[in-house]
Every structure is written in structure tokens, then in C-alpha cells.
């Protein structure tokens, strides 16, 4: 009696809210599709190689944490991690510093040819940076920066400047004029106005640029593939690619290795997903 009552109430509720329920079902279903490859990758990375060959859907008998240890040591991921962190930090810091200064000047100073200069910077948004790789390779070779993490970072900084100048100049443009005028009267230099007065006011732009450059540098494999040669200077993606080539059928190790490179990105994303989304939807033009 009670159960039919509950059932009737449930049906009534469903009738009233069926559109909502259907909406959530669709949204959750697509969410599961999105997550599926990651979950499958994590799931399988804890199995032994034998278990993987016995079936894709059977759960691991015990959690083979060992896969991660083995992937880490055999793939030399320690060195790769360190290299990628160096390149990423250099690129993010360099891009932010150079392009916020340039964006500030372009947005708030009037001089001959200022608009043309802005166009010059934005022209870089039109093409995939990869097409410039051949002369870049030769240039870095002549500068003795080939097979060098600093040279790689220089390329990333250059390639990130069009987008970040675009973001910074837009943010600086809409700050009220009075702030700057007050600072000028107080006798602040141009550099101090930029660094101490205006830069703290464009924190969202800093976050946007930092996340976009981080994702671009961390994820890219094309530039390191051409510009890095020695194994001890490999970036994470290059290391993962080499690891894949060496342990072609040992999927337990490969998936563990892939997950190792995914973890930092997902970790940052959980804390700053809003900045990631805003930045990358804006920076989609890359």
C-alpha cells in the first residue's frame, strides 16, 4: 500500500518535472562519455600486463601501484618532469612580463604608429605557429640554442606574445584614466605606474594568460620534437612518446606513464577550471 503510494507520488513528480529529469539525464550521460577514456585509462593502469590481455573490463586483482613506479623509473619521467617544469615556468613568466608591458604601452600611451604596432602584434594570431618551425630551427641552431631548454622557452614566449598582448591591452584599456593621472601627479615613473599601480588591477588577465601558456607549453609535442634532441633534455610529452615507442605493447606501463603526465594538468584544472575555460575559449584561435 505504502509502496504504491510512493510510486504514485514519484510518477506524479516525474510527470510534473519530466523535462528537468530528462535534461539532467542527458547532461550526465554526456559527462560520462567525456570521462570514460580517463576512467578506462586509470582503471587499466592498475592491472598487470597479463590481466590486460585477459580482458579489458575485468577489474584488477590487486592494485598494481608498481606500474607507476616502473613507468616513472624506466621512462625517466623524473628528468622529463623537471625539464617541462623549467620550460613552462620560464615561458609563463617571460610571456607575462613581456606582453603585459607591451600591452600596457599599447593600450595607454599614444604615439606615432601605435595602432599599426598593435596590428603588427595581433597578426601573429592568424597562423599556426608550427608553420614557422624550419627557420626557427635554423635560428636557434645559429644562436647555439638548439637542444636547449632556454631556446625552447624563447620560442614558446615568442609564440604566446600575440595572444597575451591582445588580452593585456584589452584589460589595460578599460581601467579608468584617473588612477594613472593621480600616480603621475605623485611623481611615479612609467615603469612604477605599470608595475605597482595598474598591473595589480588586471589580475584576471594574468590568470588567463598564465593558464593558456601553461596548457600550450605543457601539452605541446611539436616544438620539442624538432628543437630537442638529447634524451636528458626531453620534455614530458617527448619522453612519453619515446616511452611509448620503447614499450609498445606493455599497456600497463604506457597507461601509467600517460596518467603521470595527465595528473598535474587535471590537478591545476580542478582548482582553476574557471580561469582555464575563460582563457582557452578566448585563446581558441591558436
Amino acid at each position, binding site marked *: 500500500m505504502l509502496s504504491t503510494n510512493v510510486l504514485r507520488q514519484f510518477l506524479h513528480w516525474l510527470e510534473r518535472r519530466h523535462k528537468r529529469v530528462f535534461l539532467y539525464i542527458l*547532461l550526465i550521460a554526456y*559527462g560520462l*562519455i*567525456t570521462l570514460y*577514456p*580517463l576512467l*578506462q585509462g586509470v582503471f*587499466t593502469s592498475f592491472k598487470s600486463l597479463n590481466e590486460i*590481455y585477459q580482458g*579489458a*573490463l575485468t577489474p584488477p586483482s590487486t592494485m598494481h601501484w608498481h606500474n607507476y613506479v616502473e613507468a616513472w623509473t624506466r621512462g625517466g619521467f623524473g628528468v622529463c618532469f623537471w625539464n617541462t617544469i623549467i620550460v613552462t615556468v620560464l615561458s609563463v613568466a617571460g610571456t607575462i612580463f613581456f606582453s603585459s*608591458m*607591451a600591452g*600596457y*604601452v599599447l593600450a595607454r*600611451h599614444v*604615439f606615432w604608429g601605435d595602432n599599426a*604596432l598593435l596590428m603588427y*602584434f595581433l597578426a601573429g594570431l*592568424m597562423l*599556426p605557429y*608550427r*608553420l*614557422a*618551425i*624550419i*627557420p*626557427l630551427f635554423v*635560428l636557434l641552431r645559429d644562436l647555439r640554442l638548439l637542444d636547449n631548454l632556454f631556446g625552447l622557452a*624563447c620560442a614558446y*614566449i*615568442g609564440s604566446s*606574445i*600575440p595572444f597575451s*598582448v591582445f588580452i593585456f591591452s584589452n584589460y589595460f584599456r578599460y581601467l579608468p584614466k584617473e588612477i594613472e593621472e593621480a600616480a603621475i601627479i605623485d611623481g611615479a*615613473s*612609467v615603469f612604477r605606474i*605599470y608595475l605597482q599601480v595598474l598591473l595589480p588591477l588586471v589580475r584576471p588577465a594574468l590568470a588567463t594568460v598564465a593558464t593558456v601558456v601553461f596548457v600550450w607549453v605543457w*601539452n*605541446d*609535442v*611539436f616544438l620539442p620534437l*624538432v628543437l630537442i634532441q638529447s634524451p636528458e633534455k626531453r620534455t614530458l*610529452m617527448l619522453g*612519453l*612518446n619515446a616511452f611509448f615507442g620503447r614499450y609498445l605493447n606493455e*599497456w600497463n606501463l604506457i597507461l601509467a606513464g*600517460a*596518467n603521470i*603526465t*595527465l595528473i598535474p*594538468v*587535471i590537478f591545476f584544472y580542478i582548482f582553476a*577550471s574557471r580561469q*582555464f*575555460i575563460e582563457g*582557452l*575559449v578566448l585563446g*581558441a*584561435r591558436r
Partner: protein
Amino acid sequence: MKTRRKSALLLLLPGFIFYSMFVVYPYVNSICYSFTDWMGVGPKKFIGFSNYMKLFTDPLLSKEFWRAFSHSTIIFGASTIFAVILGLALAFLLAAPRLKGRGFFRALYFLPYILPPVAYGFVWRYILNPRIGSLNEILKSIGLAAWAQPWLGSIELALPTVIGVWCMKQAGLYILFFEAGILSIPNILRDAALVDGCTRWQQIWYVELPLLKPTFITLVMFNFINSFGAFDLLFALTGIEGRPLGTTDVLATFFYRTAFGTTTHPFGWGLGMGAAVACVVALFLVSVSFVFIVIRQRSYVEY
């Protein structure tokens, strides 16, 4: 005032130098290299338009170029269709009024877009593996054993499979692009349509879709540059040669092989020929982008 201007220009300088040196100079230099037969070392010899002639007339090279070009075009076309159908549908669901957990769904859908393509591609390579992969096993377990395929290994299916994975990775971007467009349409227009007696579908068809035109054109433009520059995910899925038999070869992988070669063909066609490929692709991308920009400027709507 003069010293202020000078110090302002000083602040501009580092960015200007880096950009000119590592972006503009290489692009311009590509044009110069494309007129030489340079292999990377030794003197450069000026050979006029020979590289361009050869690119379009050499039977092997031109065949590979047009094949890569058509695959890139297919990827662009298919992902655009995917974006319009699935992206738009999910964007409308996500933009539903008073939706609980919108931020959560948004973050979830966007996640694949920010993941490293190489790692994401390797995970998919496992899933699509014909012998041990999970996709075939899932199909078998739900009684669709006949659908099990050697996905990435089959000549007919490799390209559609690659496109599927590519769309899975890009989907979040498409959805959020359209969602932002939908949310920027003022509610007053929807209400006006409602007062006039529109159904929800009529509201979408006559009010919201026409107003989404600029969003759509912007998306197509980004997707165009993205698809024609795609490298990392394809490299991870089917390698630098676009296995099997070049059926998944695209412009970026073709460009890489032409300039730098592969293990079996060490020097490719030389840096001069590689630069010629880069110039042809760049010219194509820039001219089509200009068309998009013009169309977009004409389609702007004022609310």
C-alpha cells in the same frame, strides 16, 4: 612628457624583440627558404619557383600533398558538422534556465580540451586496440560483436576514427562557445517571442539561432585554423606517416615529414621544400581567414 614616452617605448621593447625575432622573422624567412634547395647545411642556392613547381607536379609529392590537404579538409568539415549538431544541442541544454550544477557540467565537458593530446591519444589507442582494447569488448558484451573493428588499423575506418577522437577532444570548446553565445542573448528577446505566442522550438529557431550567427562564424574560423594545424593528437594516434598507408596523413604531419624526414627517409625533401609547403599552407590559411573575417564583420548584430 618626452622622457615618459621614451620610457614607455622601452617597456614595449622586450616583447617587440621576442615577437619579431621568434615569430615574424621565422615566418618571413620561410618565404626566403622556399626559393632555395637548402638541405640545412652548406650554401643555399636560389632556384626560383622550382620547389613550388615540384610540389604541384612531382607525382609522389603532389599526391601526398593533395591527400594530406583533403584529409585536413575532411577533418575540418566533419568537426564543424559535429560542432553544430552536438555542440549546439548540448549548449542549449547547458544554457537551460535555473540549471543546477552548470559550472560543474561546464568544467567536466571542457576537461578533454585541456588534456595533453599525446597522453589522451595514447589512452584512446588502448581503448581502440583491436585485440585487447575496451571498445570492442564493450561492443561484444552488449551483443554488437559484429561492430567490433580494428579501428585505427583499418584503411576505411582509420580516418573516421581519428575524427571521432578529435571531436571528443574538441567538443568542450564547441559547447562552451555556443553556450556563451546563447547566454549573451538578452532575455528580453526571448520574452518578447513568448508574448507573441512562440513555442520553445520557435523561440530557438526564429530568435536564438539567427542571433548566434556571429558566434557560429567565429567558431568555424577557430575550428578552421585548429583543424588545419592539428598535429599532436594525430601524431599520437597514427604516427608521423599517418598510418595505415597514409590514410590519416594531414597537412601538419606531411609538412613535418617533408622538412625533417622520418627514420626510413632521413632528410625528407629538404628544408627548402618544407618551407615551400609551409608557405602554400600559410597562404591558404590567411586567405580563407580573411574571408571569414569579412563575413563575420557583416554578420554582427546589435541588441
